[in-house]
């Protein structure tokens, strides 16, 4: 099997395991890409992960960067397609299913039941990010707290706090 097909297949499987997003599947990605296939070494894997974090957007795109490193532009295309397509098809199917069942009396409560889990995991992502920020010094926690209050209590664009955070970071660090 050609390398590109292997990349497509490997990331397609990872896509279906990624309940909770990229961070959930990172250990398995490491096992596949570094330990089983030997496409990347440990240090490169870590560096590419950091590289993907520097870009905006869903961090599932870490797969794209890995694909790039393994087989250039075509590798990037295959890894991205593999990582996105299976999950997107499932989401499409789920949207159709909920639409078809929309009259069912149990559907709304069942869907409502997923909401606290989703919000809890968003909160967890924020706490994890705050812990990472803390490692750069206690003042960083003040930025976290101020930004939390701003986004929670106002309806203004979060762009203001991100810009403010960048400026304070440049002044303090």
């Amino acid at each position, binding site marked *: 099997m050609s390398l590109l097909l292997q990349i497509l297949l490997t990331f397609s499987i990872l896509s279906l395991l990624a309940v909770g997003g990229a961070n959930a599947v990172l250990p398995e990605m490491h096992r596949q890409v570094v330990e089983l296939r030997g496409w990347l070494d440990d240090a490169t894997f870590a560096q590419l992960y950091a*590289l993907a974090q520097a870009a905006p*957007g869903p961090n599932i795109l870490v797969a794209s960067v890995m694909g790039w490193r393994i087989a250039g532009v075509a590798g990037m295309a295959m890894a991205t397609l593999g990582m996105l397509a299976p999950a997107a098809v499932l989401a*499409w199917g789920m949207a159709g299913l909920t639409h078809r069942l929309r009259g069912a009396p149990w559907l709304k409560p069942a869907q409502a*039941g997923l*909401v606290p889990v989703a919000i809890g*995991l968003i909160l967890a992502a924020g*706490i994890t990010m705050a812990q990472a920020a803390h490692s750069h010094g206690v003042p960083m926690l003040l930025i976290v707290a*101020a*930004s939390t209050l701003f986004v929670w209590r106002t309806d203004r664009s979060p762009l203001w706090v991100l810009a403010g955070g960048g400026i304070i970071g440049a002044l303090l660090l």
Partner: protein
Amino acid sequence: MPAATATPETRIPGRIELFLTYLKIGLLGFGGVAAWARHVIVEERRWLTERDYAQILGLGQVLPGPNVGNAAVMIGRRFHGLTGALLATAGIYAAPLCILVGLCLLYDRYGQLPQVAPVMEGIAAAAAGMVIGTAFKMTSRLKLEPEALLILLLAALAAAMLRLPLPLIVLVLAPVSIACALRRARQAGEEPSGARTR
């Protein structure tokens, strides 16, 4: 019949608006794309109510893949079928992919990224607050029941403090949470409390 009958306070986007808005979400989504997606869709564009968006995001959460990416597929489909799903998906990934290609080229050439660390760290700290603030805001606006709040806190604790695998957390807490919500609904019984849903 359109899939989405807009309530008075929400509006249905056109195809171009769908794409451009998701393009913006992808471009702005440093660190916390979930926070940006919610801000733009619920507060800025008013495509969906807080509750509708939270429910779509909840479904996106239990499916594999990024919750916001899954939500983009479902929201795109809701407004414009297959075209909408493709447009929303293309929009959310287009800008980040282009930026990633740029970063990869820099990385290939220099072996490391240019040092703008302090600014990035300040932005990352603010992004952490943005994500936490979004979770607080959704919670306070949705007026969750006590048991739902408990599940929310358990999920956060399990993921952020105990560092349990996310699939495990979802697999355990989602059925419990759904059971609680169904029980509430049954207790509410024939009370016309759900009649507000038009």
